[in-house]
């Protein structure tokens, strides 16, 4: 149990460190970093490299945005198996629907309720 959390912590932390190195060493904007992570997740997942990491580290691999890419890729692959080309088209979003819907709805609600503030 504790071991699980240590592995999650270590792997999740290391994935973030990769992002930090990208930010500090290149002048990539945050939007680009996020895009790179999601796309990298899709690529790694397609190559069959990400699933073992998820099995090993659980949330340590699924919570970073590479995990979001993994969900998209696995959805598309599953869709392709079941429904062919059509499945490959909608499978990705289908699998990631919960996260994206939540982000849109909670995001919209928060943006409507609150206002942006200047931070001292």
């Amino acid at each position, binding site marked *: 149990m504790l071991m699980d959390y240590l592995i999650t912590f270590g792997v999740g932390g290391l994935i973030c460190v990769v992002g930090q190195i990208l*930010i500090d060493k290149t*002048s990539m*904007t*945050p939007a680009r970093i996020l895009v790179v992570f999601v796309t990298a997740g899709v690529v790694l997942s397609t190559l069959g490299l990400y699933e073992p990491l998820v099995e090993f580290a659980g949330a340590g691999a699924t919570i970073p945005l590479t995990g979001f890419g993994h969900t998209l890729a696995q959805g598309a692959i599953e869709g392709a198996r079941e429904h062919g080309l059509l499945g490959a088209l909608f499978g990705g979003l289908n699998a990631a629907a919960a996260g994206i819907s939540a982000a849109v709805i909670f995001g919209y609600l928060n943006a409507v309720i609150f206002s*942006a*503030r*200047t*931070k*001292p």
Partner: protein
Amino acid sequence: MQKTRHVYELLRPVYILGEAAVAGPKEGEGPLGSCFQMVTVDDMLQQKSYEKAECIMMERAIDLALAEAVVSNEEVSFMLAGDLLNQIITANFTARFTKIPFLGLYGACSTMAETLLLGSLLLSGGYGRYALCATSSHFSTAERQYRQPLEMGIQRPPFSQWTVTAAGAAVLGVQGTHQPRVTHVCVGEVIDLGITDPNNMGAAMAPAAAHTLLTFFTESGFRPEDFDYIITGDLGTVGSDLLRQLLQEHSLELGQRHFDCGVEIFRGVEGTHAGGSGCGCSASVLNGYFLPRMARREIHRLLFAATGALLSPTTTLQKESIPGICQAVVIEEGAAC
């Protein structure tokens, strides 16, 4: 006729009859905070948007400057103003209420120098009686236009600068005696040495500052020793360092006379990294700190060379490099009374 292409000696000196600086709370906490004529409690000023708040700041600065000059709006021939926002909305929208013939200008952070320069040339040339020069910037309006949203959780690189929330205004007139006066102006060229990182504004603007200063000293015959202060607008620590190096290659030393408003306005203020930037930076420091000191006879002559980075979010996305500009004016103390 003038033999030089950049530097002009005014036919008759133009006096700075009144000036004012309005600054936000963070600027008020900085080392120059006590100099500003007005420091606001928050940066919203009870307005519905930050853009409206910036307009109010510019309006306050204009009102204070006109009051100090004892000149009414109806007497002013030109209002020369600009700011950082797209379509210079702060200046345009503020001008709705001033009822002064208006010329909108854009020189990014060099705007204060640009308005002073043009205002002086106009009045000195015999056109108009008074000219009003004004500019402003606001952290929260500039940031979302040029960089990231306020609530976005990101780190700013250590060479980035913090947009100053402030406005400055000055009233120029040809009839004066003891007030500070503009005697020379130097019109800068757009210089671009290929810097593309929009976070490193100091590096983008330093070559323009170096070019204008070198041109000024070559064409005018002045030497750095002739000035108590040589003021740059918002080069920050990185840009100031680069300026020193660039000038050194041409054996020009500014030494202790060099004063960068961006470095000084936030000296010791946490989280501002390389210093302040924005039109309001040089405008508030000149109008709030230097001109009153000159009026008190603590400074005899200064060179005010404000720089601007002429980028837009579109050109940044298109991976264009950042052109810089630097305009300079010479300000001398008036006759002893």
